[in-house]
């Protein structure tokens, strides 16, 4: 049911990498907003995990609601979430799989020694058995200021 593709503009990509580097060695997280698989805005969210932010992230329900609210405001949809894997490959973990929501795009950026490297996108299979790797397209930048990162 899911079209396993996600398009991010260079400025969005830059903002995600910057966020991952900023929170290194901890994981960063945030919401991806847009339409039809095209990310047009980000909402950077606080990592509220209590299990150690080096290896975990958690978006609280209140922040989730905030992301949905921002999406509605922008006339967009919540397409998924991004997070970083400090000093770990950009592949989803068992923990990611156990906690995944269907249809959402899960964008992962690897941050090795404070430097953002690989970026991948994943979608949960309908039977929850595993992730399917999606295609990450690097789109044009229609408006340089659309990559809006709302740091709170």
């Amino acid at each position, binding site marked *: 049911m899911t079209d396993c593709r996600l398009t991010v503009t260079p400025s969005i990509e830059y903002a995600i990498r910057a966020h991952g580097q900023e929170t290194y060695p901890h994981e960063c997280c945030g919401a991806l907003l847009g339409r039809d698989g095209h990310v047009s805005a980000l909402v950077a969210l606080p990592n509220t995990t209590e299990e150690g932010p080096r290896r975990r992230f958690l978006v609280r329900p209140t922040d989730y609601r905030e992301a949905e609210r921002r999406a509605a405001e922008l006339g967009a949809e*919540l397409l998924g979430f991004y997070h970083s894997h400090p000093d770990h490959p950009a592949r989803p973990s068992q923990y990611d799989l156990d906690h995944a929501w269907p249809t959402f795009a899960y964008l992962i950026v690897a941050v090795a020694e404070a430097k953002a490297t690989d970026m991948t996108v994943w979608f949960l299979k309908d*039977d929850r058995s595993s992730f399917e790797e999606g295609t990450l397209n690097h789109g044009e930048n229609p408006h340089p200021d659309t990559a809006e990162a709302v740091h709170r």
Partner: protein
Amino acid sequence: MAKILIPTPLRPYTDKQDAVDAAGATVGELLADLTRRHSGLKAHLYNEQGKLRSFVNVYVNDEDIRYLQKEQTPVAAGDTVSIIPSVAGGAETTIDRSVRQQPDHDLPTLTNDEVKRYSRHLIMPEVGVDGQRKLKAAKVLCIGAGGLGSPVAMYLAAAGVGTIGLVDFDVVDFSNLQRQILHSTPDVGLPKLQSAKNKLNALNPEVKIVTHETALSSQNALQLFEPYDVIVDGTDNFPTRYLVNDACVLLGKPNAYGSIFRFEGQASVFATKNGPCYRCLYPEPPPPGLVPSCAEGGVLGVLPGIIGIIQATETVKLIMGIGEPLIGRFLIYDALRMRFRELKLRKDPDCPACGTHPTVTKLIDYEQFCGITAAPEPAKVNSATELTSLELKARLDRGDKLTIVDVREPNELQINRIPGSLHIPLGDVPRRYNELDPDAEYVMQCKSGVRSGKAADFLRSVGFKRVLNLKGGILDWIDKVDPTQPKY
């Protein structure tokens, strides 16, 4: 009928509607009706055990049902129920990698005998065949085959942990038998590892017991730990405790920690990738001598049973990747009050071992770190301040006028006593020394000579001229002079 608000990722299962109606008097009934109408939702809302997934939050009019009556929370007409995601994830942890993530085909299979043996595990979906195979594949190292190591090793062997390593270099003593249930009366005098291996092999011949008859040290710890998945700390002293912690942090291996003293025990899981370590709790050891060991302070025999079984439970959970591990939580058990308390423990970013900028990058000299200097050479008796049991006996036989002062606690005097001694517990000496004559001759005595040495020093400092310490205490007296009395 109540209205349920559906979050974006679940809308494909509700024909793209962001709100749907469902019937029911409680949240549980409402959700059951919802999943009947939209069957695709079920797998995403509920886990295999039929429980709401941990990252699924349900709100009734802006209140999280976890703080109401959970799934029994009543829903009235006109209420709005919202399903709100928590979004979570993260990179692999050691346990994910080492055990949990191990692909199935790498896990050993179970023999028919093993299936029979572990049937009470296999019938629980949380464990199942996969969990039992993970246990079989796992390697656990127990530091110490004593009070804590006994229940840990016995239950891990019974549960089917494939390889159990034991580090110890001690010999079974009568005083161990009150709590160290790996060892029995006929084992007294045998190396603990030999007795442990016999016991564990008899309990479960399927598991491999690897014995390391050595004192754990900075030189051998990393090499010893390397092949194991989980380290269980059952040590009774601070230098080894810090050594185990630091080696676990350096190798990224979880440390199932436990400690016991008198009537109190502690347990936690340290040094997981994302959790705190022992040094986050205690960056520095206590000054030497401040915290007495079990040999000095005593320990309730059943106490290591409870704490060791908590360590074993955590080990088994870590291996199978089930439940909530005791990470970031510090459990304190009080046997007299029969109470458990739990302290929240956070990873300290400034921790010298596991913090952001660790200063402990290799194993150090832990005896020195804990302020313990090497024991001085067994010096000759200093005749000005000490005397031996045989010298004391000779002087008593000669009829010399001297008084033996026993500075032990009253309960210790019930076990054994040098006839004719005066009793002043060490703690009372500063208050009661004026009962003594500063010009008379005294021989201070305790169990082994340490406490009485302190009492003798004190008396000299307040002007007593002729104070001697009985070297080796009443234990030496019993060995050399009066073997009819019991030793403890």
